């Protein structure tokens, strides 16, 4: 009798667990659907964005319109009140009120993003929550290799739209966060909202072909001899700087985080390097002098010089890794 009762309890518990498990999709499935929703969803939302720069936290209320790959972000408060960023799916244009200085950058497609992301991160479904009156899954993306940033996403259980997005630095400090307090899926944003004025010159543009890059900047960019495990080359960019000269930027990604390597051969590129050649920043022997330009929470910036080319490595990974990348240029 007692034995039958125990078996009955076990069967009841097991069937309950199976039922719960059947309700809960795997975190990989949730992320896959979230990525699809990022390409197809339509909505209008309001919320708050936080970011840390130079040790300070800045925040802004934002209104966001999405229609497939097109988006429009309006900054309603904070230091950039009135700024609008329009992404027509290919090109992003940033418009500042009272400033005839639109900044334009072209996007590059990122193929196989989910595979790269999941190869380098462990996705964990850590629970459920409510954001903007919507029931959400909470999914953590933790790096498989130490010294890399992590992320936590709050994903709508019905639409798979990300309603809150927190980013953490390699040492676990929050770098940025955007959370919606209101979302309207019935909204059909007008196509006019995603139309760029098209008045600005391209400031950042992706290139696939090394020969094109070389022709434009007049030198052949160098690839680093070392990149951290999990990162792969994600393309060249040419960035027009405020000193009027162009930088070549090499992008490396692990699916969630980017390491950028800027290279330039004009005297204005590089940045002041007060510690250059001193103390532990100089590699033993007669190797290149690598110095730290900035240690911000969102990214650290290291500099090296090879011949007449200045190299600046920027990323949110462990300092020793960034230093190793910067020192690997010969």
């Amino acid at each position, binding site marked *: 009798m007692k034995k039958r009762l125990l078996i009955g309890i076990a069967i009841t518990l097991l069937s309950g667990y199976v039922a719960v498990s059947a309700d809960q999709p795997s975190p990989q499935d949730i992320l896959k659907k979230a990525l699809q929703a990022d390409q197809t969803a339509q909505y209008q939302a309001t919320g708050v964005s936080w970011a840390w720069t130079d040790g300070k936290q800045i925040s802004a209320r934002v209104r966001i319109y999405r229609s497939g790959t097109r988006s429009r972000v309006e900054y309603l408060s904070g230091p950039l009140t009135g700024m609008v960023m329009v992404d027509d799916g290919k090109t992003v244009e940033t418009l500042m009120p009272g400033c005839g200085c639109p900044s334009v950058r072209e996007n590059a497609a990122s193929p196989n993003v989910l595979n790269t992301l999941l190869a380098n991160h462990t996705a964990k479904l850590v629970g459920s929550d409510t954001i903007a009156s919507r029931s959400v899954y909470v999914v953590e993306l933790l790096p498989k290799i130490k010294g890399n940033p992590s992320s936590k996403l709050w994903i709508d259980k019905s639409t798979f739209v990300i309603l809150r997005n927190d980013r953490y630095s390699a040492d676990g400090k929050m770098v940025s966060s955007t959370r919606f307090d209101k979302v309207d899926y019935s909204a059909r944003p007008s196509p006019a909202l995603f139309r760029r004025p098209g008045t600005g010159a391209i400031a950042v543009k992706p290139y696939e072909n090394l020969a094109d890059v070389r022709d434009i900047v007049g030198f052949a960019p160098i690839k680093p001899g070392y990149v951290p495990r999990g990162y792969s080359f994600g393309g060249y960019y040419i960035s027009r700087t405020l000193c009027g000269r162009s930088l070549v930027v090499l992008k490396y990604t692990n699916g969630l985080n980017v390491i950028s390597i800027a290279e330039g051969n004009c005297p204005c590129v590089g940045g002041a390097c007060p510690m250059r050649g001193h103390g532990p920043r100089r590699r033993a022997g007669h190797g290149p002098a690598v110095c730290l330009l900035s240690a911000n929470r969102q990214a650290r910036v290291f500099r090296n010089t090879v011949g007449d080319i200045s190299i600046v490595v*920027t990323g949110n990974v462990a300092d020793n890794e960034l230093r190793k990348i910067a020192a690997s240029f010969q």
Partner: protein
Amino acid sequence: MKSEGKCTKIRKMLPYHAMDALGHRTRASVDEHIRSCADCRAELDALKKVATLVETSELEAPPDMWPSIFARLKTRMEPGQYRGISAWLRTHRMQSMVATGAVIITLVGVLLNIQLQKEQPQLTYHTYLATHAAISWTEPFADKAALGLISTLELQKEADVKP
């Protein structure tokens, strides 16, 4: 579209152009480029101003410089070998002209370099942080609203530190 590579080549010749030291063909090629490139034209104008300053500056040697050099040369000569500096200049006219030209070009080069260094302040780390945020835009699950804040604020800080 303007080629950065072409500009780089042309800019190397601009100091010589400013001093009228280019050959006819090279000068024509540079002139053709600067007609269509405002940046290079501006740089040439700046270089010409510096060259004019150098040419019009009234630098004078200290009064005892030449007698002192002359006396030192004389002590190093064997007796009977000295024929006078003017005689040496007459027999080595070409060499002396080349040497004088080299000294002037070196001086102008040093002055130009100082001037160019002054005109090209170094970019700060803000530029790299802004670019970094801009190219992170297309990563999966990128927080675009926050990236927009970071990239624009960093660019503004870079603009603020420029004179």
